[in-house]
């Protein structure tokens, strides 16, 4: 009897899992389909384009490396968005938090001398994480103490972060080497760089570990229980004696720390210094990744890889199939649309609605 029940519940679990990924998969398929139609309408071959895209992303060790490199910051910003989501917060500020993480890591990377390689890299990573996290505390505190909605404050803080990092890279932290005229920091020391083993960047491993960490915090710890309770029903959280204000700020800090470490990893593993124009849309990409991954930390990884692969392969696609890279942005927007408009996908694919935790994010902007 017990065994039978166990088998049944296992079957149920498999069915639930399939059901839960059906909508994202359907959304991706629909987005690719409409993308194909756009490509065909503009006179190119969709099939060729997608083949070239896949070849560019996965066709070689070099392709894999590029894909994973592009995936890494997307995982981090996706985690930043997904983590905040769980507490009912919408962090659009991943962009700014990432910039702070990146420039702090760069500063530690070029200004601190004489440390052994592993330690130096770790120090820079930690500095970037903390910088990002602290920057995320601002919207958290504004939300708790004044009621200012985090969507607007994080967008505003993105511009502030851009201005501030631009000032730093143009002023105190500027690369003064002869011949440099642009706003950038000096190159970080080799001891602060993160290695890439063949096609596997170290940063990608960190990103996966970060996802595991996020999952553990949310699902296995008492803090995670508080975060989810605040997201689901802040009134009940208060009634139960949880410190809602503290939880909101802490959630924003952790969320922003994910973005901060993402910026540090990008600096130390890929770019090698801080430069302007650094991954301009990562904040919004994070939203797509988080929703495509159903705001589940483990869902974020494949979602980020999909987007990362599209980014990594788009060069090859442009070269081989003469399709502009930006088609990937179009497809990405369509994915986001179909994931968000899950009724459409459900209706098309005849999938039943699932019961679960739902969060409304956008209610009013201002102070109460």
């Amino acid at each position, binding site marked *: 009897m017990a065994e039978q029940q166990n088998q049944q519940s296992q079957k149920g679990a498999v069915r639930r899992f399939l059901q839960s990924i059906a909508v994202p998969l359907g959304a991706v398929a629909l987005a690719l389909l409409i993308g194909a139609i*756009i490509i065909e309408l*503009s006179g190119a071959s969709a099939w060729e384009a997608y083949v070239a895209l896949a070849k560019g992303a996965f066709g070689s060790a070099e392709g894999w490396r590029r894909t994973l490199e592009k995936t890494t910051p997307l995982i981090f910003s996706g985690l930043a968005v997904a983590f905040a989501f769980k507490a009912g917060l*919408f962090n*659009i500020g991943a962009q700014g938090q990432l910039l702070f993480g990146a420039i702090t890591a760069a500063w530690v990377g070029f200004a601190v001398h004489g440390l052994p390689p592993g330690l130096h890299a770790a120090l820079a990573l930690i500095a970037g994480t903390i910088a990002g996290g602290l920057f995320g505390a601002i919207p958290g505190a*504004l939300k708790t103490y*004044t*009621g*200012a*909605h985090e*969507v*607007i*404050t994080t*967008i*505003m*803080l993105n*511009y*502030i972060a851009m*201005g*501030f990092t*631009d*000032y730093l890279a*143009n*002023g105190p932290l500027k690369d003064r080497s002869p011949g440099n005229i642009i706003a950038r920091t000096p190159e970080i020391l080799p001891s602060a760089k993160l290695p890439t083993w063949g096609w596997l960047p170290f940063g990608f491993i960190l990103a996966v570990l970060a996802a595991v960490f996020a999952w553990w915090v949310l699902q296995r710890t008492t803090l995670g229980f508080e975060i989810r309770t605040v997201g689901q029903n802040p009134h009940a959280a208060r009634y139960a004696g949880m410190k809602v204000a503290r939880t909101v700020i802490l959630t924003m800090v952790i969320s922003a720390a994910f973005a901060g470490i993402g910026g540090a990893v990008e600096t130390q593993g890929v770019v090698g210094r801080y430069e302007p124009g650094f991954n301009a*849309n990562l904040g*919004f990409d994070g*939203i*797509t990744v988080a*929703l495509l991954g159903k705001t589940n930390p483990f869902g974020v990884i494949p979602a980020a890889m999909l987007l990362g692969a599209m980014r990594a392969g788009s060069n090859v696609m442009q070269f081989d199939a003469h399709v*502009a*890279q*930006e*088609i*990937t*942005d*179009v*497809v*990405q*927007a*369509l994915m*986001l*649309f179909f994931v*968000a*408009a899950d*009724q*459409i996908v459900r209706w098309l694919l005849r999938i039943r609605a699932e019961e679960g935790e739902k969060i*409304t*994010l*956008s*209610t*009013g*902007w*201002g*102070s109460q």
Partner: protein
Amino acid sequence: MSTPASFANWKLFWKRWGIGLSIAAVVLAVIFYFYARSPRVTEAVLASTLRQSVPLVLGALCGLLGERAAVINIGIEGQMLMAAYVGFMVNVRTGNLLFAVLMGVLTGAVLGALLAFMSVTLKIDQIIGGTVINILAIGLTGYFYQVGLSAQGKLNPIPLGPLAKIPLIGPVLFDNPPITYASIVLVFVVHYVLFHTPWGLRTRAVGEHPRAADTLGINVYLVRYVNVIVGGALAGLAGAYLSLEAVGSFERNMTNGRGFVALAVMIFGKWTPFGAWGAALLFGFATAMQTQLQFAGKLHIPHQFIGMLPYLLTIVVLAGFVGRARPPAADGIPYEKEG
């Protein structure tokens, strides 16, 4: 008997207009001081302020039309960008500037309809709906963008007869291209519609208490659709301004965050057209000063910090540090009919 009453009236008057009037007085004083010292520069800064404010005020009007009906529009950026692109392309193909502007406006309206469909009919989270539009606009304009296209001309200033000859005021206010004039007129139009017509009353009711509106036979969905679509048209006009009046060509991502700043302008202006206009001018002024300082290189404040000011101010306003900003009560909440 009449003294306390008139005193109360005066207090009410001050409460309502005091901050605006004080700011206006200070601004005027400062303007005249600088005009006396360096007329050319002052004129240039003020003219630039007005020009910079045009897309912001149009975007903010778009945002507040939506939010007064409780639909948050964070896709203004995308609506502007797409409209800028379409307007430009139509101008390249037809050379008809008026038609190009109209197509830009139509593009904005179509995207408005898409947002309304997502947030009113599908009841998608409105922030996500707006983000879809933003990413879609970046993708589509980037994908279809062709390098090296050029258009014949752009919208030129139309001096308003003798008015344009008045010193300082003339060149700043009465010698502008058409969309700039239109943006000023639209501030008054939107104010009139929102606060002096049945439609405006219904819009505000829908934004505050949609169920109450519903029980009085007002079609909540229709009101939301129309406002968001008209708002989209205004954002489209802002886009047309960028590509057809300000620059005369299209560049990738040329909106450069103006759509988001417009949201800030709307909040700063406390969801009113005149407030938004004032805020847009303030933000425009900050941008104009930033350029001016960068150019002159006199002050020792890094120009980035002046550029940050509008964003900081927005946060300050939003946090309620200077007066409370109260958004429409139902803002962002999808309306579910019962039964």
